[in-house]
């Protein structure tokens, strides 16, 4: 996309106030998540700094031992929830973005390659991907997370496996449409090597729908990671992500200690909804039929 295209794109985007606010929320959450070690009142992963006597304190409680102000209360281990949420968001965002990026690269390459070569290879690849799409992503991720075990790399692997097919499907459709255009024929008649035609010509032109899928899938990856963690299949207990924080607070919900589950849940929902609003706006703008 060139400069004029990009500035026009932004001008159109700015027309939708909600989307702008959502984008600001996403940016803010990303920034605070990445800067968590700098701004969080406490390091929730350092067990030595946690006070068990401060466990399950309500929001606004001031620690008698350390004088720390627990704005959002504490969980069962005495973690400051605000700090835990910031650190949890950091993990969620990093895992979601990493899984999204890898699934994007893998799926887009596979889909565009299939569209480029055509014939049996294409049919075989796309049927495998269709088959995989017929299983719910959560089921696949669940099985893989259970088989691979805990850890960030394992979690990302499970998420990528569950999600690359969406990118492949989208990239295939878009690349198939580009494949038959004359500029691809022109590149082939030069001739240029196949990888160059795929990566320099077909994929850049197949990008708009992929960007839309990417925003939605990053939000999905974050939600999926939270779900896995909630079910205890995600990350180790010592480094709680948002899903695990929600799971940890779940048992106290009915005893009135709502904050342990609710606040991480709100953070998760705000992030995912904001990403989806931004994604919807981008989708509307890239859809030529919806253009005014």
């Amino acid at each position: 996309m060139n400069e004029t295209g990009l500035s026009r794109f932004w001008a159109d985007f700015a027309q939708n106030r909600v989307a702008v606010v959502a984008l600001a929320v996403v940016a803010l959450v990303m920034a605070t998540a990445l800067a968590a070690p700098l701004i969080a009142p406490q390091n929730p992963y350092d067990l030595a700094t946690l006070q068990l006597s401060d466990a399950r304190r309500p929001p606004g409680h001031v620690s008698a031992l350390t004088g720390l102000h627990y704005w959002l209360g504490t969980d069962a281990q005495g973690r400051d929830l605000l700090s835990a949420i910031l650190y949890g968001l950091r993990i969620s965002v990093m895992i979601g973005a990493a899984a999204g990026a890898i699934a994007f690269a893998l799926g887009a390459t596979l889909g565009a390659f299939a569209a480029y070569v055509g014939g049996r290879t294409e049919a075989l690849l796309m049927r495998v991907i269709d088959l995989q799409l017929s299983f719910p992503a959560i089921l696949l991720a669940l099985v893989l997370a259970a088989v691979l075990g805990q850890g960030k790399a394992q979690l990302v692997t499970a998420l990528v496996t569950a999600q690359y097919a969406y990118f492949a499907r989208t990239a295939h459709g878009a690349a198939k449409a580009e494949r038959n255009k004359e500029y691809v024929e022109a590149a082939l008649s030069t001739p240029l090597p196949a990888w160059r035609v795929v990566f320099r010509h077909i994929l850049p032109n197949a990008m708009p729908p992929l960007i839309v899928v990417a925003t939605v899938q990053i939000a999905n990856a974050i939600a999926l990671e939270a779900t896995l963690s909630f079910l205890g299949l995600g990350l180790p207990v010592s480094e709680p992500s948002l899903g695990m924080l929600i799971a940890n607070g779940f048992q106290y919900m009915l005893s009135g200690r709502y904050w342990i589950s609710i606040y991480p849940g709100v953070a998760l929902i705000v992030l995912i909804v904001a990403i989806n609003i931004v994604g919807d706006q981008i989708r509307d703008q890239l859809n030529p039929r919806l253009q005014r």
Partner: protein
Amino acid sequence: MTELLRVARVDKTFAAPPRFGDGLLRLIGRAPRRAALRAVSDVSLDMTRGEALGLVGESGCGKSTLGRVIAGVHPQSAGRVLLDGAPVTDAAGMKTTTRVQMVFQDPFASLDPRMRVGDGLAEGPLAHGLTTRAGARDYVGAWLDAVNLPREAAGRYPHQFSGGQRQRIAIARALAMQPDLIVCDEPVASLDVSIQAQIINLFLDLRRRLGLTMIFISHDLSVVRHVCDRIAIMYLGRIVELGPGAEIFAQPRHPYTRALIDSAPRLALDDATAVFRPIEGELPSPLNPPSGCAFHQRCPRAQARCRGERPEMRTIEAGREVACHDPL
């Protein structure tokens, strides 16, 4: 005059795409028989260096397919395409030479919309060592000069140009590969009439300056007449008449050529009563070609023999070939 291109008995068929369940049907011994589309049938022609050949015919006659086969975009199904004695595509059907390049019909589709003009022009030459990263800017600039575009064009995107300018860019892209032969597939058909003349003049100018050998595909006889030395008339995948342009226009020998010339609308300012005679009927389907001479259903001179026996190309006078049992 040395021979540059030899097209020998080239066929191009497109198989019908397999449909769901074909494999199953084959398994139970009821393999479906679907007609393959024979777009180009048994075409032979030679070109000498520096020559311009016009390829003329109605839509669907296979002229674009023949052009693409010669340019190596599609591999031929049978026969040989030799450029200076070397095949254009390898055994796997991949194009191996850069010496034949192509200019496409629609300059809005043939330039990658997301690539700057300069990058698009430098891409091929860089990939084939015709220029270096350091020299690319000057190299591209020189070819932009050659097609009368400002050098600043290199920094812009295709959508910032008009149709005529885009076609100049497409021509520069083909020329930048320093080809011996360029195949132009209806290069002016999608341009405004006023722009068409500019592009045609550019071709004439380039031909004179660079000694280009060109194949000029068109359905517009007046364009071909202006640019080409020799003309090949195609009908339903076959060449039916081949010869020097001036002679063919003065005295067509194939009834189809005659009909094409008569049906071409032209400006008849001095004759308000001029009537154009459209060709009767429509081009038959190449999926189900007629028996004998493919043109017999529409031919005013058709005889019993034309229905049963297909006429071969034969030389009827020096430099003129025609495929007709009863040439004009």
